[in-house]
């Protein structure tokens, strides 16, 4: 057993009391502590001798009295009782969040005097690792940005390495990344279809007739005001913990912005253009086809982009609540194993998937709303 302690714990009595339990000790001490070299060790550490401060105090007192008395034996300079420990010293350069760097000297003393069995570098690394996993330790001791310990914010190269290994190999904890993506995409597609299709149909019903509006809109306004993620516990009670509650959550998330925007788009069609339809004696179907739907399309597409955003959000939440596959499952597994690199990979994949779907809608906008290029020049 190796007992670690931070800078302010050391005292001669405490150290001896701890050492008496039979544990090995590796404690940080203040950098200014006087630790004279007794023997240098090949790994850069050295052995020092720490005298018992009480014995030293007693001797100072005795020698002082002898000096005042002018005693003949002179001051007592023989060896004092004390302990022999090994000192490991190193300097770390830490870069803080604001980009400033500071250099800090670290000094440890340890009862592990065998430099071959316990090289200095290994002990220093072990000590560092101990503090990095301590959630209470906010100040950075190591790493690149100083705000988050390196162990919690893996470097990009490490994340990339994790990503590659998640793609190429299947781990029992996470499965494979492509498999997880496939599961998540499938959930997303089903949820979006289940939510988006009725949203557009209901928006048409509500948008094209007063009766439809009175029948449909109040209900959807109620649904809209429900806190989406607050429904999760109820969904679990109603629909269990299988795929159904996840699909419904995504569907609801997708449906609301799509409905609201399509409905508003239909109602927002320029009345002057609708009048043109009357002047040209268009039938109701022709008016809807030539004037209402194309006029509502820009806002409906904005709604589509919004609802994709909400649907991705719903997917992330749904998958982390209770899932046995998918990206969210990967994240919750990684949380259990303290694998921040895996979490970061999964988050990055979510972001990329979101960007891709958004880009697809924008491509659709460019094609369907080509007539607007005149405005943008």
């Amino acid at each position, binding site marked *: 057993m190796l007992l670690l302690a931070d800078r302010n714990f050391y005292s001669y009595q405490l150290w001896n009391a701890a050492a008496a339990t039979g544990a090995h000790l590796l404690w940080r001490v203040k950098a200014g502590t006087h630790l004279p070299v007794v023997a240098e060790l090949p790994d850069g550490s050295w052995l020092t001798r720490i005298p018992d401060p009480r014995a030293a105090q007693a001797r100072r007192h005795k020698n002082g009295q002898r000096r005042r008395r002018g005693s003949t034996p002179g001051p007592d300079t023989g060896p004092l009782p004390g302990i022999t420990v090994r000192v490991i010293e190193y300097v770390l350069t830490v870069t803080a969040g604001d980009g400033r760097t500071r250099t800090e000297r670290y000094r440890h003393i340890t009862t592990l005097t065998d430099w071959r069995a316990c090289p200095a570098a290994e002990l220093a690394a072990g000590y560092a690792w101990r503090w990095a996993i301590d959630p209470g330790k906010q100040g950075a001791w190591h790493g690149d940005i100083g705000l988050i310990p390196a162990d919690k914010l893996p470097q990009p190269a490490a994340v990339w390495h994790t990503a590659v290994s998640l793609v190429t190999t299947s781990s029992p904890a996470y499965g494979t990344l492509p498999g997880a993506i496939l599961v998540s995409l499938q959930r997303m597609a089903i949820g979006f279809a289940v939510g988006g299709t009725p949203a557009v149909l209901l928006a048409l019903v509500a948008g094209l007739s007063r009766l439809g509006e009175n029948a449909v809109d109040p209900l959807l306004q109620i649904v809209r005001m429900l806190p989406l993620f607050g429904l999760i516990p109820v969904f679990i009670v109603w629909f269990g913990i299988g795929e159904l509650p996840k699909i419904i959550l995504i569907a609801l998330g997708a449906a609301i912005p799509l409905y609201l925007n399509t409905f508003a788009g239909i109602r927002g069609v320029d009345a002057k253009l609708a009048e043109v339809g009357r002047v040209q004696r*268009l039938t109701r179907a022709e008016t809807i086809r030539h004037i209402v739907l194309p006029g509502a399309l820009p806002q409906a597409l904005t709604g589509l982009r919004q609802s994709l955003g909400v649907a991705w959000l719903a997917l992330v939440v749904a998958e982390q609540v209770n899932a046995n596959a998918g990206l969210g499952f990967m994240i919750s597994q990684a949380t259990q194993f303290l694998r921040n690199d895996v979490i970061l990979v999964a988050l990055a994949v979510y972001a990329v998937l979101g960007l891709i779907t958004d880009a697809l809608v924008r491509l659709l906008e460019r094609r369907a709303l080509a007539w607007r290029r005149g405005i943008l020049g």
Partner: protein
Amino acid sequence: MATRDPGVASLPVPAGPAARVRGLSRAFGGRVVLDGVDLDIAPGEFVAMLGVSGTGKSTLLRALAGLDREVTGERCVPGPVAVAFQEPRLLPWRRVLANVALGLRVPDAGAVAGRALEEVGLTGRSGAWPLTLSGGEAQRAALARALVREPSLLLLDEPFSALDALTRIAMHRLVLRLWERHRPAVLLVTHDVGEALILADRVLVLASGRIVFSGPVDVPRPRDRDNPGLTTLRHRLLTELGVNTEGQL
């Protein structure tokens, strides 16, 4: 006597007036805008209607177009009606040709619409999006859309007011040329006395919801703005419109 049912628009234009209204009235929330207007427009007649803002010119035009369902009185427009508004009101999401062909129910509507665009000199822009057209081009496309229906009554609601002066002159000539070729009855609503005098067979002044002046323009076309034959009538019209003309042209 023409039937009062606007649904029989496909019947051949009878010998009667292209448009006739009797006792046409309209109030917006208690404010009377049209107060028993009587008006006949003969087939092929070009009528310009003047009036200061808020006198109900546009309301009368919208009533004739059948766009106002709350107007009271008798309205009889036997033939097809077309309207060109102050703004071109082209559907921005349909290309120019499709805009002209909108609601056109004839065989080969595309070719017919193409010929209408040719008449207004827009053949080259038939595939353009309306938002890329200049103001004059858009208004010409709107004219083509109105005329392609071969209306017996063409209603023009200040269609040139948003155009610059040079474009407006060109549009006046275009409208006259089209009118001479197709001979619809025209009701042009305008603020511009000069425009009315250059274009119309007859000029009306609408004030306080009634037609307070109606007189012919007896000068052969093409007319010039400073044609001396128009001076007397211009003064009369400006007086009717409440503008002091002393010392002015």
